């Protein structure tokens, strides 16, 4: 058996790891998407880079962080951040740039500044795509946060790896089941949040 405190502790570490990385990805990703609106070249560079890195296996990303930053919590956050950033930037940019030009013209016509157009016109229209990106990033972060235990991030993954090393099924279950519940929770809560913040009459899916 695995002690309840151990599982709760590991779960807490897992949450901190997942959400710290996710928060960082959002904090960097959304400004990057806004910047991409300003320059076509930056946009195509970022999109190309995003598509490229998304094809690389998470395990390779986690491993390559080790020679650069060593092991522990920070390198783990960095590895998760790298992977979670891309869907956020990509989806936010696509959402922001696919707003009807007529709408932008109308906003300009009533005297909104460039910034106000982004804030009050482009963003509400981008919410569905943006939240889909954030949800995907959160699911990805939750998944990689298990794996990063191999580079010393602690959390639920360390239970899984200990269980694997000692053929201890209880430990494996104690590590993996909460992570799966967490994934389902993320999926449901972010879908709910998306519905709440999207203004009526926009997107619809």
């Amino acid at each position, binding site marked *: 058996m695995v002690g309840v405190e151990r599982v709760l502790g590991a779960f807490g570490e897992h949450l901190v790891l997942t959400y710290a990385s996710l928060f960082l990805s959002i904090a960097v990703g959304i400004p990057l998407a806004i910047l991409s609106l300003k320059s076509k070249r930056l946009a195509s560079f970022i999109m190309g880079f995003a598509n*490229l890195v*998304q*094809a*690389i*296996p*998470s*395990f*390779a990303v986690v*491993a*390559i962080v*080790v*020679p650069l930053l060593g*092991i522990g919590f920070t390198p783990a956050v960095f590895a998760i951040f790298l992977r979670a950033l891309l869907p956020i930037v990509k989806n936010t940019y696509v959402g922001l740039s696919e707003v009807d030009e007529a709408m932008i013209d109308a906003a300009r016509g009533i005297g909104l500044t460039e910034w106000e157009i982004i804030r009050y016109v482009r963003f509400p229209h981008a919410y569905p795509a943006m939240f889909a990106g954030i949800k995907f990033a959160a*699911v990805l972060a*939750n*998944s*990689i*946060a*298990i*794996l990063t235990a*191999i*580079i010393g991030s602690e959390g639920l*993954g360390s239970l*899984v790896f200990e*269980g*694997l090393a000692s053929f201890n*099924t209880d430990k*494996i*279950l104690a*590590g*993996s*089941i909460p*992570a*799966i519940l967490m*994934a*389902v929770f*993320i*999926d449901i809560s972010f879908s709910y949040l998306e519905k709440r913040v999207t203004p009526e009459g926009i997107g619809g899916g």
Partner: protein
Amino acid sequence: MDIRWVWESQNLAQRTLEHLRMFGIALALSVVIGVLLGLYLYRRPKLAPIAFNVLNILETVPTLALLVLLLPLLSLGEKPTIAASVIYSILPIARNTYTGLTSVERSYIEVAKAIGLSEREVLLKVRFPLALPLIAAGVRIAVVFTMGVVTLGGLIAAGGLGAPIQTGIHLYDRDIIIVTGLWVGALALILDGVAALIERYLRDRYGRR
């Protein structure tokens, strides 16, 4: 950095073959199962929302959690790795097959019926070819998923390129990590590139404009 030393001491040639073998088997299974499921759901559209919801939930399960949960059923090694790859890859292929088959323009179907094609012929000669670009897009997503899962297989004794990465991390050996990590990354990009080329070819050949 001594690339040659890493390549030989870690047996990367053989690891690469193991890796590609698992990748090939898993992808082939995913394509067969995914396309068949898409076809089946096209015939029974009432089941589609339920099936896609279930697959969507499976999709969110952390990869390593799914791999270790399959251990008691399939033991260590290649089997659980291939099974997990297939479980993740069915959704993009089945969903795109289903969407591709159902979203064919009405006028094409009407013309096909007017010249006397049966339902079955319409499906095989009109709907399916027109769905091919979307199916290929689904397969391309599956290529990325499969590559990711197969690499993780190294952690449950499936061999492949994940094994030397794990060794590198455990020994804290910079050279092994960098050489193997970059090699897996390059391999993933090459396979994704090939999938993209096939998708583009099918889009040019059967794409709707």
